[in-house]
């Protein structure tokens, strides 16, 4: 049956206060900003944010006061530098204190992989001797039987919900996603449920014509939200490029609490949905992000 619904409804139903949310699983692309902004508009509280890096989205949610805990390898602004709201929360408890569970990209991915396998942990040699391991509940120090060589056991990470941006989906949650995948696959599988945010909603035949490109099983999908430009200012391969200037502008605006509040008012609180946001970004600006050229994948024949 169709799982299509509005972003408002999807966030209302599947992102309650205090839940843990995986976002930004692909890294700098396919970041579900539309979902993050709706979470802010619905004034969620006490969320645990989970993600390898988070190119300003986590900073916005932290600044808006939605977050009590961050499980991540990196929180900042990839092209512009530090994350000001994140700094204020950690350095001066503004708007309120947050807990941090530090990871590296590899250990976050291993934790999600363990979750996707239903395994309690996966052992690794990365981070041995670093301060990331010390007093971190995400890890347990052990050693290899026989050799006695040290190992770090990375505990399984199982988010309540993963919000994944994809290029196209059908109404049941069969979706195609391409470009760098980061931890999208294991992250979705490790989560109790998945919200798909799709640039395009297409008939099932389109998706099922290429089952190898399907991102994850529809049985995991709770909601499918049709949200064109849902990842702006991050890129979506084949649909739009990265709006680098937007990251610079956010970086400058969020330098002070007041500046951040004004930015949030203008770009989130004062726009009722993604359609209104797109209007605010302005068509000519979005047009410049559209592909200059199509680059089609070679045909594939599943025939028999």
């Amino acid at each position, binding site marked *: 049956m169709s799982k299509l619904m509005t972003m408002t409804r999807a966030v209302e139903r599947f992102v309650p206060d205090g839940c843990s949310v995986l976002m930004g699983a*692909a*890294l*700098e*692309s396919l970041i579900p900003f539309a979902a993050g902004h709706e979470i802010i508009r619905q004034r969620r509280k006490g969320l645990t944010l989970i993600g*390898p*890096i988070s*190119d300003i989205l986590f900073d916005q949610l932290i600044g808006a006061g939605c977050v009590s805990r961050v499980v*991540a*390898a*990196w*929180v*900042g602004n*990839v*092209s512009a530098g*530090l*994350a000001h709201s*994140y*700094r204020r929360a*950690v*350095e001066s408890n503004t708007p309120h204190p947050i807990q941090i569970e*530090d*990871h*590296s*990209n*590899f*250990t976050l*991915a*291993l934790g999600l*992989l363990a979750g996707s396998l239903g395994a309690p942990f996966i052992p*690794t*040699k*990365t*981070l*041995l*001797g*670093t*301060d*990331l391991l010390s007093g971190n509940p995400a890890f347990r120090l052990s050693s290899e039987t026989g050799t006695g*060589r*040290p*190992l770090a056991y990375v505990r399984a990470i199982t988010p309540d919900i993963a919000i994944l941006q994809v290029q196209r989906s059908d109404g049941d949650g069969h979706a195609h996603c*391409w*470009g*760098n*995948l*980061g*931890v*999208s*696959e*294991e992250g979705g599988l490790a989560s109790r449920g998945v919200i798909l945010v799709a640039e395009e909603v297409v008939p099932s035949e389109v998706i099922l014509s290429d089952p190898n490109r399907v991102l994850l099983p529809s049985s995991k999908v709770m909601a499918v939200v049709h949200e064109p430009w849902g990842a702006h200012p*991050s*890129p979506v*391969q084949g649909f739009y*490029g*990265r709006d*680098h200037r937007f*990251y610079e502008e956010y970086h400058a605006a969020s330098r002070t609490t007041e500046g951040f509040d004004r930015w949030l008012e203008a770009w989130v609180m004062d726009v009722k949905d993604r359609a209104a946001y797109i209007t605010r970004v302005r068509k000519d600006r979005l047009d410049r992000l559209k*592909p200059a050229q199509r*680059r089609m994948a070679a045909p594939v024949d599943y025939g028999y």
Partner: protein
Amino acid sequence: MAARSINTQYTAQEVMVTAAARQIRDGELVFVGMRLPLLAFALAKRTHAPRAIGLFECGLMRDEPAPELLYTMSDPPNICGAIWSTRMINLMGMLQQGAVQIGIIGGAEVDRFGNVNTSYIGARGRPTVKLPGSGGAADIASLAGRLLVMMQHQRHRFKERVDYVTSPGFGEGGDWRERVGLPGGGPIAIITTLGMLSFDPETKEALLASYHPGVSPDEICRQTGWSLRVSPTIHETMPPTEEELALIRSYDPQGFWTRP
């Protein structure tokens, strides 16, 4: 990084990119960080290491640098022409297998034994500055065969001991890496805006190996927060050739990364 023109011909960042590129050998798998490391990989590919292959933690492998400047490794031009677009775990797995010969990262703070901090300045509980964190840098530093660290050389960033070890160098020196169980070889050089530091093969302490044109060893020592020992083989860093400069500028025409 703050702009710092050594002379009118090239910037400190251009010297750094050139020095880093020269450490990449042909045919090697290179785990590439963003910004200057990415340019170093592109430069090496176009000069002495045409068969080097780049790994990007977002889930990409490339044997050709992207045709245009990247602001992030997930920018669309980095996907097209990739030889593999996959899950991060596959590339990190190759790194842990020992298949990646060299990795290049940046840092905010570094210490006498090449340990890098990109997490907390001041106390972890209540830091004066919260930095973004590891990303994949700590994994590259833990697992790559050789490591290059690229840093802005300022006294407050070059500390006797970093406040927090994010990306491991040689810990407390000597055989620390073997003791804690890190498989990677650790840093071979810290390439800075002023010069290059290498490591004593025994003690693993950082030594001043070269100074960039127009910079004096004394100035570098003044900008270093511990009494920096000087390598017996200290020399001037070989500046970028015209060809190298042309290539760097063809990748970064606006100087977004190299003429800040």
